[in-house]
């Protein structure tokens, strides 16, 4: 058994994987000043992984109890690589990235470690974090207006970003760079458009501007949180191309967060799958898509309709919903939805076991999952699904519905509720009844 530390070393070869992985910053593009980048941030260890996140935990105190939004995230990002982070809404993808950037609200309790080139970022003052932000690590959000100020011209905003890290830049040089950057991200007529305001741009154009700003100081790491989710698919294709060009030009590495398994398939070298605030599988993009070892990953792939498939095979949904991250019961958080669940799964939350070179999965039955070779229907059987369908469970009820779980008395409502805003403490017991019925119905043999 090994936790992610092992994966970290195993993945040093990831740079050899295709697409996006061009770690060479040798291109003649407008952005490359490769030589000066690392030295300008003195004090950072160039041999360490660019970004090393270890045992990251984030808790939000709320009235219903502590929301444990991120529960032990580990990953390492090497130069030039693209790490995809996927997971359903509420799985902790955004909170993880905000924690890395030091952008969480003050109420958040963050523990663990986030190292940029060997230097600890957690607990840094705002002043020293702003030295890292933009120049070392920069972030792209889903909504471009998070990063743009509606009252300033686009050009001014790019120039300001440039000046933050280079006070000596003349205004003429700054403007020239702003135009270059807009050209890089494919804004036609860049010389004119620097004088436009954000509202004069469409959603896709604004996201291009945000990418230009994120790239302005040649960061070594870009964290992009659902950068194309708000966009139409044709515009998404444009933006993904721009992102890839920008990565090639600068040699930056990227953490790409998305719920779209298609987007990740195209540009990530490695993929981390999150569930209920934790990584449940991490591996090369091929491992994850063709040889997943965690039932949740397999289920996600099986529930996707495919635009390139002529067959009308039924989809294999995962029943129920993700658990609430308030007062998690012990055991595997995926257990209530898992067709391979056995009593042993409820004893302790499985750590990430190594299942292959640089491939880890948090499941005690990965050998069973392996037999499916990525075909979800082998594991997520249709008959079982129909039974459970009659009582799809609510997130909050997982704690109570499981009669088999010793830690929680059956019928005891959980203190807190789901992120979907189901703030009533009485719901748990009610829907939980259905859950008990359905789970016994489906996993009979396993559960006894």
């Amino acid at each position: 058994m090994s936790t992610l530390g092992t994966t970290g070393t195993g993945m040093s070869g990831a740079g050899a994987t295709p697409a996006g992985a061009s770690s060479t910053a040798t291109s003649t593009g407008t952005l490359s000043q490769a030589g000066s980048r690392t030295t300008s941030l003195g004090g950072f260890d160039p041999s360490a992984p660019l970004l090393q996140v270890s045992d990251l935990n984030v808790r939000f105190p709320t009235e219903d109890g502590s929301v444990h939004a991120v529960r032990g995230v580990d990953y390492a990002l090497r130069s030039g690589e693209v790490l995809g982070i996927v997971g359903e809404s509420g799985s902790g993808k955004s909170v993880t990235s905000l924690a890395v950037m030091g952008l969480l609200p003050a109420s958040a309790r963050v523990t663990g470690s986030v190292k940029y080139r060997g230097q600890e970022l957690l607990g840094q003052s705002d002043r020293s974090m702003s030295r890292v932000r933009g120049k070392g690590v920069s972030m792209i959000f889903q909504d471009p207006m998070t990063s743009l100020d509606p009252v300033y011209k686009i050009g001014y905003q790019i120039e300001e970003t440039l000046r933050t890290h280079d006070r000596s830049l003349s205004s003429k040089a700054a403007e020239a760079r702003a135009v270059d950057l807009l050209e890089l991200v494919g804004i036609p007529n860049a010389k004119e458009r620097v004088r436009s305001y954000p509202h004069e741009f469409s959603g896709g154009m604004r996201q291009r501007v945000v990418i230009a700003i994120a790239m302005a100081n040649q960061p070594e790491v870009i964290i992009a949180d659902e950068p194309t989710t708000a966009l139409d698919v044709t515009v998404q294709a444009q933006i993904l191309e721009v992102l890839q060009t920008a990565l090639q030009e600068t040699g930056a590495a990227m953490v790409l967060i998305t719920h779209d398994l298609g987007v990740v398939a195209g540009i990530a070298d490695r993929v981390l799958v999150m569930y209920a605030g934790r990584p449940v599988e991490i591996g090369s993009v091929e491992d994850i898509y063709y040889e997943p070892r965690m039932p949740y990953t397999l289920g996600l792939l099986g529930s996707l309709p495919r635009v390139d498939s002529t067959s009308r095979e039924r989809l294999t949904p995962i029943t129920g919903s993700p658990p609430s991250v308030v007062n998690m019961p012990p055991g595997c958080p995926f257990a209530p939805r898992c067709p391979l669940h056995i009593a042993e799964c409820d004893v302790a939350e499985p750590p990430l076991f190594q299942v292959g070179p640089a491939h880890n999965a948090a499941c005690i039955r990965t050998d069973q999952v392996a037999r499916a070779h990525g075909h979800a229907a082998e594991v997520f059987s249709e008959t079982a699904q129909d039974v459970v369908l009659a009582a799809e469970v609510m997130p909050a009820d997982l704690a109570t519905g499981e009669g088999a779980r010793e830690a929680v008395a059956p019928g005891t409502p959980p203190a807190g509720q789901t992120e979907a805003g189901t703030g009533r403490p009485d719901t748990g017991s009610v829907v939980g009844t259905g859950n008990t019925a359905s789970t016994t119905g489906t996993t009979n043999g396993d559960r006894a």
Partner: protein
Amino acid sequence: MSAPATERTGGGAVQRGEPILKVRGLEKHFPIKGGGLVKRTVGAVRAVDGVDLDLYPGEVLGLVGESGCGKSTTGRAILNLQPATAGSVVFEGREIVGLSRKQMRPLRRDIQLVFQDPYASLNPRLPVFDIVAEPLIIHGLTKNDTELRAKVRQLVETVGLNPEHTNRYPAEFSGGQRQRIGIARALALQPKVLVLDEPVSALDVSIQAGVINLLDDLKNEFGLSYLFIAHDLSVVRHISDRVAVMYLGRIIEIAERDELFSRPAHPYTQALLSAIPLPDPRRERARQRIIITGDVPSPANPPSGCRFRTRCQKFANVLTDGQRELCMTVDPPLEERGTGHLNACHYAEATSVL
């Protein structure tokens, strides 16, 4: 200008008899008011600008296109929730356009709408029982309380929810469950046609799959017809029998499902299909992608001639100046152009892009 009904099937060989819903030349324009004290109309958003569609009994017709192309407006105009500016919508031989609310009442039973947002479309203050029972009560469809209870119970079970939970409020259900509640309510009046406007777009994939399977089952069980509006072409391919592609208020291509996905003939359909990322790393990386430039023009001021010409990769890179002239001056109608199905491109050519 409208072609005979048989042609509107998109060229498939399957004979489907008479359409249950026949849409011809449908237009919905929203006036743009100018500034100043006296608000004068200075133009119009041509949200739907001449849509022709046929929906056959028992079929699923997918309606796809990018944000703002007029899909939802088409759906609402078909249901007469927003009166059409022009055109005709014939349901089972009866013209709907121009009917008053009262005249629509009996037809409401037959055509129901399911919304995208399961959070917003259910009354948060009503328990699920009341939400599902409401249409039954309004239309006086049950004789007594016992019958009402039995009917609601049956509907709730049909959509895969636990009938014990009908005293709960929408907020106490997950997104997928709420969408099921919306579907149960829509089914209460035993409609013939469901207009589903992005019914699974707000759901996570693992939950979306269950709702898609449910919709599939319901259609087969009750012989329903769906107008299935979505921007996700993977979902549409999965559930539809035929697919219509919309661009700037018009249908630009319509065909049998596999025909459309394997032999798209309109450059916009080709670009749209080519832009969808495949959740398959090897295939995705081996693909040639057609990337179209720019954004959708404003529906208040569509380009002359072919509406797609400002973004058309064929127009920009393939056609000669002489050929472009036609694109700029003549609005291509939706017709069969030797590609086996209807499309609206002067230079249509079936090509595989997936």
